[in-house]
């Protein structure tokens, strides 16, 4: 996909999904955890947007916020905006949201072992979705379920449709889950680490399948993973998340060729095989901090090899990395790189105060 010529022109028209300043916080007795803290990005039709980051960086919570599936004690905060096809989702009631789920936005989960209920046949679970949104039942629904299973490349679908999940292999199961998600012809498919639980060959097949389905149905895909290799394979555009924030956003080739944020660089360096000469795999020391307060500093600073004094004082905002780059932003005080360091810090500071006052 990344290499294909059909990369849509990003400036054209309204995006399918526009997330602006999304903030999702979990209110526990001890503290408020700002799992997603001011995330903005958009996804266009037929485009695959990757979201990449370590465990605990808020990728899944972002996906669940879009689906409206944040469990108590979590909440999407005021001031967040999720616009899908021109409609604001954050104002919707639970009932309206339910109409949307499945028919407009669908989701594929990480573990195909558990995302199918083991006590029902695969066909039954696909038909459940068909019945809900397309009011199909009986033989008609069975036909459709078989077609869907065929569409996701399951051989002998008419027999498979009556089998239980335990009779499917891992890859087959994930295909069935994708069939379930596609049952109601969604426009946006959110894939939350769909290949993490699969082995590498199966992983490639699933990615190829998603690619084919995207071409056929003009699907927009939001692809969450921590695997840089998968991201390179699948996405048109990449957002790098760290501690609830998007720290860098760029088209996939640009990001891999020219990573700007020290965190993105660290991630790319820690791919096994990227530095064939090194004895040891380079890693990013430390853990993702728990974002439990509004940041007035850079959350990556404690782990950053390039940190300087200002980093603990000024919160970096997403700014273009240089004057020429119109489609590459990074939230790091080192950028814009064509400005002097003092100017850059200044730019982040003014941008930050602007945004705070807007909120």
């Amino acid at each position, binding site marked *: 996909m990344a290499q294909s010529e059909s990369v849509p022109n990003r400036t054209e028209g309204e995006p399918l999904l526009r997330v602006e300043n999304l903030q999702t916080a979990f209110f526990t007795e001890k503290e408020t955890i700002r799992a997603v803290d001011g995330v903005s990005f958009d996804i266009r039709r037929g485009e695959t947007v990757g979201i990449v980051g370590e465990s605990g960086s808020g990728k899944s919570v972002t996906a669940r916020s879009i689906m409206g599936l944040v469990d*108590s004690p979590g909440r999407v905060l005021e001031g967040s905006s999720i616009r899908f096809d021109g409609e604001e989702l954050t104002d919707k009631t639970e009932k309206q949201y339910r109409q*949307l789920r499945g028919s407009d936005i*669908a989701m594929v989960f990480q573990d195909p072992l*558990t995302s199918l209920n083991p006590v029902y*046949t695969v066909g039954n679970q696909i038909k459940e*979705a068909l019945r809900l949104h397309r009011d199909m039942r009986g033989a008609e629904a069975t036909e459709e379920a078989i077609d869907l299973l065929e569409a996701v490349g399951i051989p002998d679908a008419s027999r498979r449709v009556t089998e239980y999940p335990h009779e499917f292999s891992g890859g087959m199961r994930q295909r069935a889950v994708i069939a379930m998600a596609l049952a109601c012809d969604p426009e946006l498919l959110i894939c939350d680490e769909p290949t993490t639980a699969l082995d590498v060959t199966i992983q490639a097949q699933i990615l190829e399948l998603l690619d084919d389905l995207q071409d056929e149905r003009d699907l927009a895909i939001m692809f969450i993973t921590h695997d840089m290799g998968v991201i390179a394979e699948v996405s048109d555009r990449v957002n790098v998340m760290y501690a609830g924030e998007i720290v860098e956003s760029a088209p996939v080739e640009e990001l891999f060729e020219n990573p700007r944020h020290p965190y993105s660089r660290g991630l790319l360096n820690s791919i096994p095989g990227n530095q064939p000469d090194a004895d040891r795999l380079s890693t990013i020391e430390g853990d993702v901090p728990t974002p439990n307060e509004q940041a007035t500093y850079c959350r990556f600073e404690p782990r950053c090899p390039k940190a300087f004094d200002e980093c603990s004082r000024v919160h970096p905002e997403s700014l273009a990395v240089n004057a020429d780059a119109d489609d590459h932003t990074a939230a790091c005080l080192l950028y814009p790189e064509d400005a002097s360091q003092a100017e850059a810090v200044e730019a982040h500071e003014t941008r930050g105060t602007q945004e705070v006052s807007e909120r």
Partner: protein
Amino acid sequence: MSRTDEREDVPLRDRIGENPGPALRWLAGALLLFALEAGAVVNFVTGLFGPGVELPTLLSRELIPNNGYQDPATGAWQETFFGLSPALAWAVRVVLVYAYSFVVAWWLWRGYLVFREHYRYADWTPKDDMIDRLRGHRWGQFGALIVFAFVVMAVFAPPLGPTTVERTISNPYSYEIQYVDGGEIQSATVGEANLAARSQGSPDQNVGPMQYDEYGRFHPFGTLPSGKDMFTFMMAGARVSLFIGLLSIGISGFIAAGFALLTAYYKGLVDLLVVIAGDSIMSLPRLLFVMLLSVVLSGTWIASVYNGGLLLALIFAGTGWPVMWRAIRGPAMQVSEQEWIDAAKSFGQKPRVTMQKHMAPYILGYLLVYGSMSLGGIIIGVAGLSFLGLGISPPTPEWGRAVDIGQSYVTTASWHISFIPGVMIVLVVTAFNALGDGIRDAIDPESESGEDEGTEAAAAAGGGA
């Protein structure tokens, strides 16, 4: 889950249509078994709308009568089954009742096997393993056996007793019996005979277990201090206990399951509210609260339904659900964390359907375990209330009342009055707990007995191969 739900492509009816042989054979057997007892069912159903229609039935008292008198001339028993002694005639009937029940149970099991072999899509489901584990669980089988015996007692109470509740307990002066006195056949009312058959503690005024009284009547469990037959009393009491137990477990299980699903699905505030409600009920001393309620509500219309049985069932359900809810809330929470719940939500499934279809099947097993375990507690509770003179109002038989009225005779010749019901309560309650244990171990695939079964089976298979 029902076998006819839409999970399979072809409905069960069509699958049977394709291969009707085994199903028809099973059905024929089932009809035959039913025909033997059809009279009782017809009698019961028509009895709801007036006097019941009498049809000949295999297990009726009329077919195998055990009340008669000994011919003074020949010494042979008259009016009993084949001239057998009342004790033997009664024993024949009891054996027949239990044999019939076992055959019915076995035939139902056969039916399941036929379904499994010929009509089920999957050649293996996790339930098969559960059944296998239960089959290797001795303690659970002990429980199942006693529970089975107890349920049969309750269902077949009328033919099991040597006489009927109507004749000996409710209306003893409306029925006459014939007996032999001084070489002549005479007749007396049951009430008069009962007066002579009282168990009052002294050796000359006592009818113990497996004894005849002066009127030639046989008493398997002896008589009560009033002279009424205790075995009849106990069988009818089993019915009352089982009714109250099942009804209150049914209601509290339903409430508990509903709340467990709601709290696990919605969490947060809903959970908190139910925790507060449940904890407030649990913090009350249960027996005292139950006593208070049964006294306060004893004057209302609801207390007159089934001699207070319905009221007791409701009280026990109302005070018992928090315990069950606590027990199944954990499993429900666990299921709600499964990804398939998220998946169901993510394609827009309604909360009610998600709970019913994707969560409920996983807590039903736990419900069964805790239900079976607390059933014993309710039986003890009802017996305890009757012992204290509350609960089921006389003359309706209740085991606890037998313990109560026999307590002053415990050290005398009439020890059986308290002892037998006491032992039976202990047995039944233990059995329900044992059954619960068995089901729990069967449901849990990691339980020890299950693993042993598995390795044994594997070893056996390996040896065979």
